[in-house]
């Protein structure tokens, strides 16, 4: 369990950044079981992988600028989009928000001193690190990086001579890291809420992290075993998926998507939680439809596990299968719709302050809606037959993963940065960078919808000249994103060292627990465990206005 309670309150009073535990220096971080420090370990390692992944994305865009060879050969291109996908999915968006902000803020938001299993928490970071290193190793080993796409479809993944096995094991280990985070969060939410915090007094981000954690626990093992079997298939040739030995490659796809579809909700749910957290703060009013938002998280987690085969509409499933999975895909859109409408309704009669986190959140709603609505279009059978495996899909998932989760991540970073580090970044610059990101992002991905519908397949090194115009626009978009992303990181790094000090507890005027404690938080968050008496996002003074108005 948590650290022994031998520390006097005074020692406990110091900020978690300065706290001296058993170890000092770098070891004080690498061996710390403090959830906040682990959150930061994740933040640093995740950012590194994000930059690697993003660089690959940037290089792909350069290659696609002109038809034929631009800067690399096809083999390199194939490896790069595989690595880009693997890194972005398994090392960035899936762990993303839960591992960084979930670790840092979940215990604080429910009034606890740490997560339920702090040592397990540290272990999960180490697993993450090992998985990441293995992924990097697969690039460096002789044989060359895997070139299968992040989906590792059989039989190609059994036939190719590249380093598929290290990549598979990397994904397997990362899966376990994700599972441990899930186990920790479910237990923490059940057992460690502060007195008085019943389920419907929990902040909405806790609801979404809770729902996410369940998906992590239940879905991840399936991909674990599936990827393991691909490795077994490669090494021993047992034939479980290999059609040459009687296996069914479509069954591989089923198993892969049984995890990987729910995984997209692992990615988006925590970001939705962040959005639900930020909107009331910057609209300075209570959230609209608290229960509906909370329950829709559960509904998404639930229905999310029922639609996996919509990735296989051209694979030759039975008609019954097509019918059921298309129908269920339509249904899964509804809880997301409920969320979006409630968020927009929360702006109504608010007092809106467009600070950087809020800008990112509004962009999230816009971009997630585009991504989600095109997702629904893909769920429509005849349409999906046309757009499956084209850049329409590529546009869809970048809109939800980057435009949604990515922007949610950036929103969270701008929102909680002052609390985490006690420093403030340059707000004016942050706003400008936001606009560059927004414009760059949409320029980069929107053209992909058009060329996808027209018939530009994905995972294409080369293309017909008629698609060039869209590729050029898209690549230009990536050039706008480059400086923007650089500047955003730059702004944060500068703020860390030279930024204005923040000691104020509540910079944005939030009402959740993290804004009631010291900035940056003390070692065990709370000197005294709070007793919670009210729901979050009350903004009581607004209520008074309402009553006096009505009285008039």
């Amino acid at each position: 369990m948590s650290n022994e309670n031998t520390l006097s309150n005074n020692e406990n009073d110091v900020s978690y950044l300065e706290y001296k535990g058993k170890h000092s220096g770098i070891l004080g971080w690498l061996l710390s079981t403090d959830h906040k420090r682990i959150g930061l370990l994740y933040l640093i390692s995740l950012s590194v992988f994000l930059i690697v992944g993003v660089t690959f994305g940037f290089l792909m865009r350069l290659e696609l600028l002109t038809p034929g060879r631009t800067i690399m050969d096809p083999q390199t291109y194939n490896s790069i989009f595989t690595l880009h996908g693997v890194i972005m999915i398994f090392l960035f968006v899936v762990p993303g928000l839960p591992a960084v902000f979930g670790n840092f803020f979940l215990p604080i938001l429910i009034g606890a001193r740490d997560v339920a299993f702090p040592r397990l928490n540290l272990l999960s970071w180490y697993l993450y690190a090992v998985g990441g290193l293995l992924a990097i190793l697969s690039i460096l080993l002789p044989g060359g990086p895997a070139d299968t796409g992040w989906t590792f479809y059989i039989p190609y993944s059994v036939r190719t001579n590249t380093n598929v096995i290290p990549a598979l094991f990397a994904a397997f280990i990362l899966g376990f890291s994700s599972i441990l985070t899930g186990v920790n969060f479910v237990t923490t939410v059940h057992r460690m809420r502060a007195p008085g915090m019943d389920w419907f007094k929990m902040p909405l981000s806790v609801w979404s992290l809770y729902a996410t954690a369940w998906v992590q626990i239940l879905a991840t093992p399936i991909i674990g075993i599936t990827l393991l079997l691909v490795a077994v298939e490669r090494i021993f040739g047992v034939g479980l998926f290999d059609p040459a030995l009687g296996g069914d490659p479509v069954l591989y796809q089923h198993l892969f998507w049984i995890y990987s579809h729910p995984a997209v909700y692992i990615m988006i749910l925590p970001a939705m939680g962040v959005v639900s957290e930020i909107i009331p703060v910057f609209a300075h009013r209570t959230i609209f439809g608290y229960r509906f938002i909370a329950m829709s998280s559960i509904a998404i987690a639930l229905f999310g596990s029922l639609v996996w085969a919509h990735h296989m509409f051209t694979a030759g499933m039975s008609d019954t299968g097509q019918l059921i999975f298309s129908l269920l895909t339509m249904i899964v859109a509804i809880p997301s719709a409920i969320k979006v409408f409630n968020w927009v309704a929360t702006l109504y009669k608010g007092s809106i302050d467009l600070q950087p986190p809020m800008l990112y959140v509004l962009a999230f709603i816009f971009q997630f809606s585009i991504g989600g609505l095109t997702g629904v279009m893909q769920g429509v059978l005849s349409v999906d037959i046309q757009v499956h495996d084209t850049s329409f899909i590529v546009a869809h998932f970048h809109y939800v993963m980057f435009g949604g989760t990515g922007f949610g991540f950036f929103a969270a970073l701008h929102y909680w940065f002052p609390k985490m580090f006690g420093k403030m970044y340059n707000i004016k610059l942050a706003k400008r960078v936001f606009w560059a990101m927004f414009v760059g992002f949409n320029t980069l991905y929107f053209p992909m919808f058009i060329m996808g519908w027209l018939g530009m397949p994905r995972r294409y090194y080369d293309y017909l000249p008629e698609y060039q115009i869209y590729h050029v626009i898209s690549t230009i978009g990536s050039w706008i994103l480059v400086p923007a992303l650089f500047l955003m990181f730059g702004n944060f790094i500068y703020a860390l060292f030279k930024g204005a000090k923040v000691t104020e507890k509540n910079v944005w005027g939030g009402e959740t627990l993290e804004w009631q404690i010291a900035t940056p938080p003390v070692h065990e968050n709370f000197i005294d465990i709070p007793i919670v008496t009210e729901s979050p996002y009350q903004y009581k003074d607004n209520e008074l206005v309402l009553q006096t108005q009505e009285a008039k």
Partner: protein
Amino acid sequence: MENHSKNHSHNQHGYGVYFLVWLALMALTGITVAVAGINFGRITVATALTIASIKTYLVLTIFMHLRSESKTFRVFVGVALLFLIISFVLLFTDYSFIVRN
């Protein structure tokens, strides 16, 4: 919130109960082997799986103390099993209606 203070679970069964459960498990194993020899046609698998489920139920409730844990635990187990069962059912919406090989 679930009751917080109880560390000492009431997960206490007498030795006798465990022995009885063990006897039942062994008996069920015997039955399933014996029955396997008889051909029930289509329900052969069903019989085997039913017996296995009964055995599992015994292990879960008594050996694993699920009976004396709080309700939350039972809901958890239900959720996990449901997820697995739904995956089976949905998968067979594909496989029941098609021959690919």
